[in-house]
């Protein structure tokens, strides 16, 4: 979910703020946005202001933060927790980088994850040396053919 998508969704819900009950149809959307930004679930109670409170919290975050947290693919099973470099991690503070580092170190821990982290994107610099080689090898090949 991108920043633009979240802003569009907030704009769509804006008209429902006066009546907290009319936000009910957007519960799943608000829940998804809330998790995307804060890695927390909505407060579970029968109070109808839960959704309005969530909307306001999301709105305030989008206003004060020019960037939203990076989207994550890794997700632990509920209740799962691991330690890495003296710090404990659950879904609340997990990042894809931490998940990859932990799985590199302990490959057998895949069973703790509901969703594994996406592979790391290769760095742009690593492509430059490779492009130079085919040109040289072609020159060498043509020289060999001439000798024959």
């Amino acid at each position, binding site marked *: 979910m991108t920043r633009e998508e979240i802003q569009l969704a907030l704009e769509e819900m804006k008209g429902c703020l006066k009546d907290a009950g009319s936000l009910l149809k957007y519960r799943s959307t608000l*829940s998804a946005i809330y*998790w995307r930004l804060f890695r*927390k*679930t909505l407060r*579970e*109670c*029968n109070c109808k202001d839960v959704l309005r409170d969530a909307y306001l919290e999301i709105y305030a975050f989008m206003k004060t933060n020019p960037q939203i947290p990076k989207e994550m693919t890794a*997700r*632990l*099973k*509920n*209740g*799962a*927790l691991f*330690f890495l470099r003296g710090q*404990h991690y*659950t*879904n*609340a*503070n997990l990042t894809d980088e931490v998940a990859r580092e932990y799985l590199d170190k302990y490959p057998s821990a895949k*069973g*703790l994850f*509901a*969703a594994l982290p996406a592979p790391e994107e290769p760095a742009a610099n690593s492509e430059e040396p490779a492009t130079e080689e085919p040109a040289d090898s072609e020159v060498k090949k043509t020289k060999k053919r001439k000798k024959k």
Partner: protein
Amino acid sequence: MANCDTLLASSIGTACPNGRGYESDAVIINYEDVDWSRTMLDGDNSNLLKALVLKTGKRGYPVKQRGANPFTGSQTEMAESDFVHGFNHTVSMVEVDYSPEAVGVINALANGKFVMVLHSAAAKVKTDIGQEVQTEDPSGEYPVFGLYQGLRASEITRDAYSDDSAGGWVINLVENNSPVSGLFLWAGTAAATGSMYESLKAAAS
């Protein structure tokens, strides 16, 4: 292994009182949602549950109790047997709502099997032992019930005019013949254990 202990190995009555009862929040988990391949006891102390992991797509559900004495009526008593004595754990709670949604919850509680993690009001106050680097002793802050035998309903009643339940349901869940008198969630540190407890209640993964 603590649950095979038959010999006393420490003193009785020397710990200072540290409060009583439970906090108003707890977690209830369907027994079949526990991922047994990843749930395990501490190797050095089998009264500690080092990991309580749920299957993919499953979650625990928060339980909230109002009033000055949440989960009042909860108790543990020894269950006598001809061979090895066990323990019966009772968790008592109230559902004040009387609605179609609440009735759905009651129906599930009546016939299901559950694990519950409560939040003890007693164990969270810690003592500074005066060392520069504090090691943390295992805490009894998060007692676990139903892990061995499962908690099943023994009594569910509703009195529309009862002051005890504000007209709602009184629910008693019992784990019969548990091999241990107590089991506590402990991830190694108090902070990690608190995080683990919160993660049990998160939306399904």
